[in-house]
């Protein structure tokens, strides 16, 4: 019983970070009607911003995190929108998808070239001390990761549903033309969406890198799992991305523990196929309209 609890808690902690990344897929889909295949690299990069701030500029960890967050928002939010999304989007969603694939490769190879191909240690924001919960031993780090990820999803949902700006973003996502007629600053709302996505990617990066270790290739697996999580949960719903992320995190651990460790990497793909066959809009998704 304690092992089951152990596996569930570990799975939820990892899955909550998948959810943060998956929400990024959802947001960009809503804002730009495209899939950002560089999303995994968006999570890989902020950790290196922090390492550079610490290693080359001698900043302590917490100020370096702040620098990493600001740089992420600027580079992965503002620059991504201005230099890639905005100029390419008029040429079609597919063109932008291919551009994000190229961007992902560029970011990965740049980190490999200019920083290192080797994995690097990354400090944990929270202590790694183990605590006992009904026989299951989990670290404070895992519990904080879970709490922060869930907290962010709740706050984001409240922001989108309960604030004027959030509702304007929803309107922009559902019908940009009508939103503009109604006086919504569509470009600004799209920019907000990209900024939120960048901030979420940075947060996911700071939470998961102490476990994954900072490495140029981290985005490969993470991006794929989060993409699948977004589809499984429902690509047009934030709560869908949350459900998809948690589900994959838990099922991955359950499979590796009780069924087979060798085929655990195949599980998200199997889940993807099943969902596409039985419920194409995803577990929480709706088949009509879009909303953030």
């Amino acid at each position, binding site marked *: 019983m304690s*092992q089951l609890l152990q596996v569930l808690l570990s799975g939820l902690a990892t899955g909550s970070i998948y959810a943060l990344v998956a929400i990024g897929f959802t947001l960009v889909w809503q804002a730009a009607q495209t899939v950002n295949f560089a999303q995994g690299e968006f999570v890989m990069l902020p950790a290196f911003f922090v390492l550079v701030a610490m290693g080359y500029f001698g900043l302590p960890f917490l100020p370096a995190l702040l620098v990493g967050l600001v740089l992420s928002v600027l580079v992965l939010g503002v620059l991504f929108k201005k230099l890639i999304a905005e100029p390419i989007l008029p040429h079609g969603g597919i063109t932008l998808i291919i551009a994000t694939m190229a961007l992902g490769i560029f970011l990965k190879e740049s980190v490999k070239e200019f920083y290192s191909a080797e994995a690097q240690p990354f400090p944990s924001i929270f202590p790694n001390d183990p605590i006992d919960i009904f026989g299951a031993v989990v670290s404070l780090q895992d519990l904080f990761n879970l709490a922060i990820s869930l907290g962010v999803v709740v706050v984001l949902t409240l922001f989108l549903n309960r604030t004027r700006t959030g509702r304007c973003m929803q309107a922009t996502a559902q019908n940009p033309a009508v939103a503009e007629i109604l006086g919504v600053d569509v470009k600004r709302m799209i920019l907000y969406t990209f900024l939120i996505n960048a901030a979420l990617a940075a947060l996911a990066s700071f939470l998961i890198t102490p476990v994954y270790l900072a490495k140029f290739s981290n985005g490969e697996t993470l991006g794929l799992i989060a993409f699948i999580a977004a589809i499984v949960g429902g690509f047009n719903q934030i709560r869908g991305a949350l459900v998809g992320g948690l589900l994959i995190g838990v099922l991955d651990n359950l499979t590796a523990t009780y069924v087979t460790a060798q085929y655990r990497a195949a599980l998200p793909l199997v889940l993807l196929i099943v969902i596409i066959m039985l419920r194409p809009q995803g577990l929480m998704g709706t088949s009509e309209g879009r909303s953030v």
Partner: protein
Amino acid sequence: MYRKYLLAVTTAVLTATGAAQAQETMKLGMVAELSGPGAPAGTNWRDGIKIAVEEINADGGILQNKVELIEYDTQTDPQVSRALVQKAIDEGAFAILGTIYSGSTMVNMLVAQQNSTPQFVGSEAPSIVEKGNPFVYRTSSGAQKGVPALTAYFTDTLKAKKVGVAWVNNEFGKGGRDVFVEEMKKAGIEVIADVASEQAQTDYAADVSKLKEANPEAVFVYMNQEESARFLIEAKKQALPMPLIGEVTLTEAKVIELAGAAAEGAIAHVGVTATATDVPGIGDFAKKFEETFKRKPTHDAIKGYVGAWTTKYVTELVGEADGEAFAEKMHGLCLKAADYPKILLDTCWDENGEMSRPSFMVQVKDGAPVVIDTVPAN
């Protein structure tokens, strides 16, 4: 007319000079994992070789020829490594140094064999020296020699009756796991948990959970560096209570750097370690490495260093750059550190290219591996 003479003389002089320079240079092909999952091992291997080549050239080169080191990055891809070994040989490499990952070596060593080119490898899978390839030589003992050296630690020191094994599912991991299970069987110790993980795996929660549930008295951890670090981090998160014992990688400097406090207490048998500073030569090498690269050397760095120096020693024993003669000399060769100081420890190679030399047990204490015992050559 005068111009034509001048041109002809100049061309002849330049050609002769070029030819003379070509004769005075001996190329070593360093084929290693400089990127991808094997980068921590490959870069250390390369840097150890760089120091050796610098020393060899300062010592007059090989047979009075200057040594030129050419680097090739396999990207930790076996097929790429095979192509690069061929490329190195095509570009005139007299000997190949690398690769580290056993899965790559298994594929590329056939190319060196077909070209009668000596190849020193950092790989430790038992199968590498079981293929009858006369041109492949280890720079550290294979798992079939290294892992049995641990048996005494499980039986005599830990007095364990039930153990677990956590291993990475690649050529390296499978080889070590098979030898360990066989050794434990011979020693009358039951393996009650056998947990395989994938290369480049990031989440070890389930693996550690399975070991914890089985509750063995000790766990043998046989993984590559990054995987070892991630495993140790998860083991600390779940407070895995039993001793974690590995072969070589578990207590490497890179693993300790990555795992941080989670590496504390980990124990490993290592063929050679930079912390064995009591051994003449190892301390000097470690100091020079740290001064040059601003980091501590790993055992892979020492392996690369020994591989390059052995290439010089054996070539000079043979008296010419002849792959066939080199192979003949290597088999059954013993080099004593007193006569060949850069070999660092008395070392022998058997008929298969397997290496034998004294080794060490180390434990991570206060963030650094410390020698806790010496194991005689087996």
